[in-house]
């Protein structure tokens, strides 16, 4: 399999912060809004360099979404920043009406998504946000897998006309995507080619999927690992091409099984190419406090879980 050396360990939110600063330097239509989490979202550098284009809105996320929508009317490109829970569930109706239905060019940037938020516990560990956002007509949903890709995605969404949900996280995580690997919204990446099983993953679990593929290789199983960083629009061709080749599929995500990446892939396969499938995802439960590693293990999202799901689905081929 293709090997991906660990280049560094960095948080994906810092990739967002770096991307925001870069895109802000390139385009003076970029503005950023933050609901009292500037440090957590790594927006300090943008705020310092472009104080007139940075809007601290306080702990008032509903108002932040509305303001961002209004700013697009003047031709600006607003990036909103807060935790994933407060970027989606708390403000769903504001996003639905003032951004999605109204077709406004707002980039909703959400950190601390999923279980790897860790010790803060279930109040903050949203596991439903991909589903909430992908159900909105016209919303693009992107879940990059490491620091480099989060930076790339943050820059790429500026050129995409329309609302975007960009999801990233808190923990320091292996950086393994080469900085010069091309990133295109809606184009999945085959990170490692294989013939026995397709492992589709997004976000932090892409790294876990690569680890699992390494374990499987030792057992003589040749897994294909596909990074589906864009959940919506789903890269139909990439999913179908891989599934046609391997004839069994595993999805991996830091999200509820309901409504996530696996759900999107399963719908596509059910319609076009019925294929045995297993889901590595949280199964209809809330999270809890703990370290990211402890939580991924307890909720079945770790490397051994991906290996087990693969062995299970291979028997169903």
């Amino acid at each position: 399999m293709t090997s991906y050396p660990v280049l560094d360990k960095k948080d994906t939110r810092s990739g967002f912060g770096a991307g925001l600063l870069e895109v802000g330097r390139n385009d003076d239509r970029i503005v950023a809004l933050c609901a009292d989490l500037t440090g957590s979202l790594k927006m300090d550098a943008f705020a310092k360099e472009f104080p007139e284009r940075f809007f601290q809105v306080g702990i008032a996320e509903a108002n932040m979404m509305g303001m961002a929508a209004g700013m697009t009317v003047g031709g600006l490109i607003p990036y909103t920043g807060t935790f994933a829970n407060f970027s989606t569930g708390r403000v769903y109706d504001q996003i639905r009406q003032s951004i999605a239905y109204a077709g406004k060019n707002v980039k909703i940037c959400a950190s601390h998504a999923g279980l790897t938020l860790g010790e803060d516990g279930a109040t903050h560990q949203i596991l439903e946000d991909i589903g909430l956002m992908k159900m909105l007509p016209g919303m693009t949903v992107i879940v990059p897998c490491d620091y480099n890709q989060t930076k790339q995605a943050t820059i790429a969404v500026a050129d995409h006309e329309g609302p975007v949900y960009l999801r990233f996280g808190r923990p320091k995580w292996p950086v393994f995507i080469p900085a010069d690997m091309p990133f295109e919204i809606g184009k999945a990446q085959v990170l490692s080619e294989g013939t026995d099983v397709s492992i589709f993953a997004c976000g932090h679990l892409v790294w876990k999927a690569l680890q699992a593929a390494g374990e499987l290789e030792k057992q003589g199983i040749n897994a294909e690992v596909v990074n589906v960083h864009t959940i919506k629009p789903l890269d139909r061709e990439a999913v179908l091409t891989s599934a046609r080749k391997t004839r069994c599929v595993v999805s991996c995500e830091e999200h509820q099984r309901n409504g996530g990446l696996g759900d999107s892939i399963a719908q596509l396969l059910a319609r076009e190419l019925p294929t045995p499938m297993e889901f590595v995802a949280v199964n209809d439960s809330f999270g809890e406090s703990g370290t990211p590693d402890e939580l991924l293990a307890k909720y079945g999202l770790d490397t051994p879980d991906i290996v087990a799901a693969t062995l299970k689905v291979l028997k169903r081929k």
Partner: protein
Amino acid sequence: MNSTAPAPAKNADIQELQSIASQVRRDIVRMVHGAQSGHPGGSLGCTDFLVALYFNVLRHDAANFTMDGIGEDLFFLSNGHISPVFYSVLARNGYFPINELKTFRRINSRLQGHPTTHEGLPGVRMASGSLGQGLSVGLGAALAKKLNGDPTLVFTLHGDGELQEGQIWEAAMAAAGKKADNLISTVDWNGRQIDGDVDDVMPLGDLRAKWAAFGWDVMEMEGNDMAKVLDGFKEAIGRTGKGKPVMILMRTEMGCGVDFMVGSHEWHGIAPNDAQLAAALQQLPETLGDY
């Protein structure tokens, strides 16, 4: 970014405005009757306000609608259920064909039950209907104007019942905090909402004191007297540019202009039957020609 010279205002005089208002009220009751659905009460109460705004106050260019509205004063309707008056005023301004008013709330129409950008109706820059969101939107647009070096103004309109939504007060705080002194917001202070009197459903308390405490420059206006509406707008515009957003607490009568609808929450969201339509139209001279 470059600013452009503001578009001109229409500056219709009081007699013209009163004449237009009569036609707009006819449009409202005919649209709601035609669809057998819609919200006549608040629409009739806000008719004088919207007619004065669009035919006298706003610097805007109906013939060349642009979403960004740079160089134009912008208006956002936050209480989107009074779409009939908004649609009539837009059509009578030339944003879209007057005849299109007959499609209100019908299938395949650009005139959705609540206003939206989704069907591309010229004159509409935001979807509204779910209450409480328009003040945030207006604030965002006002701050964008400042960033763009655009000296024009942003106006918003809200129901008084809508002030029960928490987002309004988030936006109220932010507008003062960001010194959005190019924002003029108006509350349609008719004292009624779907379930009855606002004071019974959930009292708003001392509105003037509340907005002032949030850091706004607050004034009151009689909203169903065209001369007073014009004076009120003049006063409000005079207060812009002084570091505070401006709040107009506008006293209106729900259903104003139709005697059997006036002053009751009963006509918030129901349609007149044929006989009621005829009775209403008798009270409202046809001044510009029905659609």
